[in-house]
């Protein structure tokens, strides 16, 4: 009998413990998800976060994810001025925030103003706003005034100064930036230069509006830095106010997110699944098991699974019909350091463009890439990926496999047989499966050119810091395009770009990019851009492009419709359809 008491006690305790978890109800659509980094549209940069952004918010324009055509969003129509520099957006009357307030032109003005202030954590896409006349100047004003407060004498009341700065910042915005609220439903935007892809930009998430009252409530002056500080938890279900097709009903960190169709969304008839549940899976294989056992309807991006090639094989053989491959809008490459000196102080052999050409010509990518990357992504010859830029852009041919020419160029540069080039350092980040390709490339350079290659893998943070500061010779890299124009790739190698790890600073390239930006004729403009790309790919290469990323999605096409297979990878849950 006495034994029973502890046994029953344990059992009761166990039951209490079990009662702790409270999973969400089943949703019409369940999606496997990995890390969500942020829901603040102005700070979003990861593709997974972008998809959630488009569920919770909507810009003046939006996309058809299947074709990436620009569609009306909050704006029902827009006019473009004669000189193609002024857009006037006419907002629809029935656009509403999730709390019932009307979405007005003021909400866009406020969102763009806040995004331009350097205060609110690092806004990764602030460059999108720089297309607007005066936007960059406003950003500079904000920074200058912030620095002035920080550098003011110790006896100054810096907090009061910071509050004054915040108060002045609205008037300053109206003075400097060519964004004009004509009335609640009309917004006028003048651009620095005619920008043929501006609507594509306007449809992107960094241009989403903010609910002004919520922003005002959640923003304070930080007493350490005198920054304006927005409480980042404003995106939690209790406080977030959005204007998209869904509202955020529940978000448990790293566990699940639950979306419910918004009753205030103007286009609610178009919303397919009324509830969407995103379940967090730490590993792709866990997500795959959940899919196979019917727990989730859709898994994005299973290409990293060890057996992904077998899945593709099964699809091709007709044994499965749920494996969908998409060539993505991004390129995997090795960035070449173009600076005169390496960070060690040694002369950089790669400063000579012929050496960089030789490194390209020595690789038989058609052989190497499919052998290492068994899901067989498209081998890259140019930086810009095929598809996603429209049919009129003429991608450069790139440097093919020509080992003889590679050896000649290396000899011309004074490194015949790899002599004198010293050990060439090839860096990559640990743990992400980059090693095998790095080894294959190192082996090929050694075999074809006689160069001794030293490979080194570094922890992610260290790797990023080294790559950004030029502390490398050759480093693994990758880039995804953000909008449907070649500049989303080519701007990367301008000397002013903070993501230009190569240190490439080329007058001819910059001049061509400038000329393209000023060119009124669309066809001629694309020619200039293609010419610029030829410089960074063929003449004075800044990289060795390896392949274009491939995505593999899992979903049963008989059960789920409306999943986009467009290279740009945009997905909108409200356009999906749960069939039968």
């Amino acid at each position, binding site marked *: 009998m006495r034994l029973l008491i502890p046994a029953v006690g344990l059992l009761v305790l166990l039951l209490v*413990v079990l009662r702790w*978890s409270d999973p969400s109800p089943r949703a019409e659509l369940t999606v496997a998800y990995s890390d969500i980094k*942020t829901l603040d549209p102005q700070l979003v940069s990861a593709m997974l976060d972008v998809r959630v952004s488009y569920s919770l918010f909507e810009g003046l324009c939006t996309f058809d994810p299947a074709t990436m055509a620009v569609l009306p969003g909050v704006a029902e129509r827009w006019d473009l001025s004669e000189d193609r520099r002024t857009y006037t957006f006419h907002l629809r009357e029935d656009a509403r925030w999730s709390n019932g307030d009307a979405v007005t032109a003021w909400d866009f003005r406020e969102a763009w103003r806040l995004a331009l202030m350097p205060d609110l954590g690092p806004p*990764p896409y602030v460059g999108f706003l720089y297309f607007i006349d005066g936007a960059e100047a406003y950003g500079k004003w904000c920074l200058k005034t912030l620095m002035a407060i920080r550098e003011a004498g110790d006896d100054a009341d810096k907090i009061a100064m910071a509050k004054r700065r915040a108060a002045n910042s609205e008037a300053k915005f109206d003075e400097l930036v060519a964004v004009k609220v004509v009335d609640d439903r009309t917004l006028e935007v003048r651009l620095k230069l005619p920008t043929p892809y501006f609507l594509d930009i306007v449809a992107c998430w960094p241009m989403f509006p903010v609910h002004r009252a919520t922003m005002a409530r959640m923003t304070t002056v930080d007493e350490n830095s005198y920054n304006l500080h927005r409480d980042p938890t404003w995106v939690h279900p209790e406080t977030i106010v959005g204007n998209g097709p869904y509202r955020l009903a529940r978000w448990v960190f*790293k566990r699940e997110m639950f979306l419910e169709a918004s009753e205030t969304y103007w286009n609610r008839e178009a919303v397919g699944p009324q509830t969407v549940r995103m379940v967090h899976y730490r590993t792709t294989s866990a997500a795959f098991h*959940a899919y196979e056992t019917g727990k989730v309807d859709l898994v994005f991006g299973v290409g990293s699974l060890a057996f992904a090639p077998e899945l593709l094989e099964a699809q091709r053989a007709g044994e499965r019909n749920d494996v969908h491959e998409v060539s993505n809008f991004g390129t995997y490459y090795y960035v070449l350091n173009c600076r005169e000196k390496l960070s060690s102080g040694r002369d950089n052999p790669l400063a000579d463009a012929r050496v960089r050409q030789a490194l390209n010509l020595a690789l038989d990518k058609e052989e190497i890439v499919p052998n290492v990357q068994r899901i067989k992504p498209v081998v890259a010859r140019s930086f810009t990926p095929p598809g996603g830029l429209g049919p009129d852009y003429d991608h450069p041919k790139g440097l093919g496999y020509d080992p003889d020419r590679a050896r000649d160029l290396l000899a011309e540069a004074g490194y015949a047989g790899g002599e004198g080039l010293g050990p060439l350092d090839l860096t990559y980040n640990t743990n992400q499966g980059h090693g095998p390709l790095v080894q294959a490339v190192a082996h090929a350079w050694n075999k074809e050119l006689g160069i001794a290659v030293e490979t080194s893998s570094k*922890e992610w*943070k260290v790797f990023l810091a080294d790559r*950004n500061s030029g502390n490398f010779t050759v480093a693994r890299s990758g880039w995804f395009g953000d909008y449907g124009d070649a500049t989303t790739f080519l701007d990367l190698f301008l000397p002013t770009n903070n993501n230009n790890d190569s240190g490439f600073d080329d007058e001819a390239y910059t001049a061509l990019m400038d000329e393209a930006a000023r060119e009124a004729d669309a066809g001629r403009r694309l020619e200039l851009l293609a010419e610029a790309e030829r410089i960074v790919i063929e003449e004075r290469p800044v990289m060795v492009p390896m392949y274009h990323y491939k995505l593999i999605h899992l979903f049963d096409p008989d059960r789920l419709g409306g999943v986009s297979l467009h290279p740009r990878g945009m997905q909108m849950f409200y356009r999906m359809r749960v069939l039968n």
Partner: protein
Amino acid sequence: MWHLIGKRLVQLPLLLWIIYTVTFVFAWLIPGDPTERGEGRRPPAEVQEAMKVQYNLDNPWAFYVQYLGDATGVGYLVGQRERAFDLGPSLQYIDWRVAGIIKGALPVSLQLGLAAILVALVIGVSAGVMGALRPGGFWDWATLSVAMVGISLPTFVTGTVLLLVFALVLGWLPVGNWGGAAEMVLPTITLSLPFAAYIARLTRMGMIEVMNSDFIRTARAKGLSERRVVVKHALKVAFLPVLSFLGPAAAAAMTGSFVVEEVFNVPGMGYFFVAAVQNKDLFLIMGVVLVYATMLIVFNLLVDVAYHLIDPRIELEG
């Protein structure tokens, strides 16, 4: 006993302060820039600089003092802060504060850890007693072998095998989700196995020793039933080594196991120990370590108190 509890409670802040200081030194020395984000879109340099100023990432001493003040509630008491026990924002998961992350993950870990320790206790003690009753007999041999395997096999092996057999091949249990009781079975068993094995060995050792002692002979001589002898007299004494193991074991089980979490997709704390360090997410590192240290100290105190309750002869020294 009250003396002991009082003494330990006085020691607690001192211990936490030492742990805080040591952790801070190591965390600060992790190479890399905490403001760097993974996705590769880098903000202008001035913006990154401003962020460092905002979070004291440019000044270790200021960070050390301010975080200590915020986390202990001193900053709140002197009226500088709106929140007491503020563990700061996460630099990597920018929508969340460390307290929010721990609030989401810790209950899951507590739930899994508590269940695992309970299962381990039941399995471990029964196996240990069974083995000790006839040392060298079949049951002794069998339980010892199983315990040996349980201790030796890492959880990523047992977890994966259990997952493969019971979830994928037999299809009896669901995988890769967290919520219902069925989902808890496999991770609980996996996490409990090493603890169960250890408890079994401790119980067996204790029982064999106790069963040969004089008071057991006396108990038998009194004519008590064998069951009563084992349960009432022997087990109570033999359980003491198990009890002292339970404190750190419970703390270890309840603060999460990275491996078990990875294998079964459990949204617990273990992940953040690893991720925080990898991302040099200073606030998260300090917050998670402080919470873990507090739990460890409190569990050890609870064990000492339980010791005293089971065997009042034991002198409790602080």
